[in-house]
C-alpha cells in the first residue's frame, strides 16, 4: 500500500485522493491481487501480498484476533523496501529483549548518522538474563533504528538499518 503514497506525488494526479481512497477500498474488497495504472510516466500500483498457492492466510487477520505477532509478510516487505534503498539490516541473532545501551542511563551504542566499524557492537539482545552483543558485520552508517529500547524481538527480526560504506 506504500505504493499508493508514491502515486500522490505527481502534479496532474492520475486520481485525486478521494478517488484513490475509494480505489483502495474497492481493491481490498475484491479477490484481486494487483492493480496497476500508468500514465504519462505516473503510475499507481496496488498489490496484495500474494501468498496464494502455497501458504495459508494468517488466521489472526481474518478472525480479527489481537495478534501481536510480527507477521512474516510485514518483515519481508520492510526488508525489501530497505534493500531497495540500498540499506542492509542488522538482525536479531535470538529471541529476547532489545536494548540500545549497556544499561539504564548509559548512552546508546549507536545513533542515526553514526559510522560503525565491522564487528562494532550496535545493540544488545537479552535472553535469560544474558546480554548478547549484536554487531554490524560491515563498516556502515546507521540509517534507521527499527525497534524501541526494551522491546521484545524475535529471531531474525531486523533491528537496525545501515548503509554499508563502499
Amino acid at each position, binding site marked *: 500500500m506504500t505504493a499508493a503514497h508514491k502515486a500522490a506525488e505527481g502534479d496532474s494526479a492520475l486520481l485525486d485522493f478521494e478517488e484513490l481512497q475509494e480505489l483502495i477500498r474497492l481493491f481490498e474488497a475484491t479477490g484481486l491481487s494487483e492493480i496497476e495504472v500508468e500514465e504519462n510516466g505516473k503510475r499507481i500500483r496496488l498489490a496484495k501480498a500474494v501468498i496464494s498457492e*502455497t501458504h*495459508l492466510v494468517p488466521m489472526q487477520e481474518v478472525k480479527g484476533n489481537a495478534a501481536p505477532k510480527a507477521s*512474516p509478510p510485514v518483515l519481508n516487505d520492510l526488508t525489501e523496501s530497505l534493500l531497495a534503498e540500498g540499506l542492509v539490516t542488522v538482525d536479531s541473532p*535470538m*529471541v529476547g529483549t532489545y536494548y540500545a545501551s549497556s544499561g539504564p542511563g548509559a548512552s546508546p551504542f549507536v545513533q542515526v548518522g553514526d559510522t560503525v566499524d565491522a564487528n562494532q557492537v550496535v545493540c544488545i539482545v*537479552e*535472553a535469560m538474563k544474558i546480554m548478547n552483543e549484536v554487531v554490524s558485520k560491515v563498516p556502515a552508517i546507521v540509517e534507521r533504528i527499527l525497534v524501541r529500547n526494551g522491546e*521484545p524481538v*524475535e*529471531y531474525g527480526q531486523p533491528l537496525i538499518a545501515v548503509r554499508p560504506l563502499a
Partner: protein
Amino acid sequence: MFKRILIANRGEIAVRIIRACREMGITSVAVYSTADRDSLHAELADESICIGPASAADSYLKISSIIAAAEIADVEAIHPGYGFLAESARFATICRESRLAFIGPSVEALALSGDKAQCRRKVLETGVPVAPGSHGVLQDPGEACRIAREVGYPVLVKASAGGGGRGMRIAHNEATLKHAVAMAASEAEAAFGNGGVYIEKFIEQGRHIEFQVLGDLHGNLVCLGERECTIQRRHQKLIEETPSTALTPELRERMTKAALDVARAAGYSSAGTVEFLLAPDSNFHFIELNARIQVEHPVTEEATGIDLVREQIRLAAGEPLGYEALPALYHVIEARVYAEDPALNFRPNPGIIRRCHIPGGPGIRVDTHLFSGYEVPRYYDSLLAKVIARGNTRTEAIERISGALEELFVENIATTASLCARIIRGERFRRGNIGPDLLAEYLEREKV
C-alpha cells in the same frame, strides 16, 4: 487456571495443544523456527514468536530461546508436547527457576524416568515384574556376560539415557554381547553424554502394551487403560489400538495395578505412560516410564472421552483429578501417516504437498498440521498426521480406519497411509494375531 501458555513444540502436537487452549479460554503462544514460518501451529496460535533457525538444536531444543520467548510473551506455563524438550529434567528445572509452570511431571520424576537403569531398579523394589537382567548400570563387560549366562540369550543392551528404541542392541552370544556393550556405551556417550548401559533378557514375540496414567499434584493417580503398540517400524510405532486383543480382563487388571504401582513409586503427576512387554506366555515385564504426553494419546481419548491435554493443563495448575477409572466406550485404532516411502525402506520424504484431502465423517478423528500447500521441512520428525477411528466393535473400527486411510490423499509425497490401510485390512491384523514380526512379514509378502 493459567491465562497464557507457551507451546514449545511444532507440528500436529502443537496444533493439538493450541486447540485445548482455545477451548479452555487460554491464550496460546506458539514458537517456530524459520523453517516453520508458514506452518499451521504458527498460524493457529493466538500469538507466535520466531525462536531460531531451522535446525532444531538452535530453535526447538534451545532452552535459552524457549525461556526468552516465554518471558517476552509473559506466559505462566510451558507445554513441551512430546520429543524435543518434553522429557528434559534440565529444561523442567530451568522452567522452575524461571517461575514458569512446566506442564508435565516433576523434575524428580523426569530425572528418574530418564535414567532407565535406575528406574528399572526402582520398579524392581515395588514388586512389579521387570525383564530379567542387570540391576542398574553395568560396572564392567564381565558383569554383562555373567548376567547373560544367568538369564539366557538373546539379551538386549540398552542405554540408560536412551529410550524409544534409541541406542538398543541385541546380542545372541558372548562374543556379540561384549562387542554390543562396548559399542552401545560409546554410542550412548556420544548421543546422550551418558555412557551407562544395562542388559535385559530379550523376549521374543513380545507384544508392546502400554498403560496411560494421569496424576495430580495431590498424590491421586488414575489408569485409563492400555494401548497396544506392537506394530512398529524401526522401533517407532505405526499402528496402535485399545483394547489390546492380547489381554484378558484378569490380565488387564493385574497390569493396571502394576502401572499404578510404577507411577506411584516414581511420584508421578501429569500424563504419562507405563510400557510393558507381554510375553507369549502372558508374563509381562516393565520396560520404561514415558514421562510425557504420547503421540498415540488420542487412542485413549477416543476410547474414554477424556481430553488428556486438557487434563495435563488442568493438573499442572494444581486442580485435583476428581475421578477414578473411566470405562472404555469404544474400540479405537490409530494409524500414523509419516512422510516416508514404505517402498524405499521408509525413507523420509520432505517437500511441498500441493494438495491434500483429510478424511472426516462418523467415528473419524485426524490430528494433523497438514494443509494444501504445506511444505514438509526436512529438519524434523516426518509425522504428518494421525488418523484415529473409533467403533462400537473392533470390526467397525477396522472398517472405519481403512476407509479413512484410503480416502486420505496427499499429493506429491509418498506416505505410510496406504500401507497402514493394507495391514489393518489384512487377515492377520483382523484376527488380532499381532506381533513384532507382523510388519516385516507383511512387507515381505507384498514384495513377492
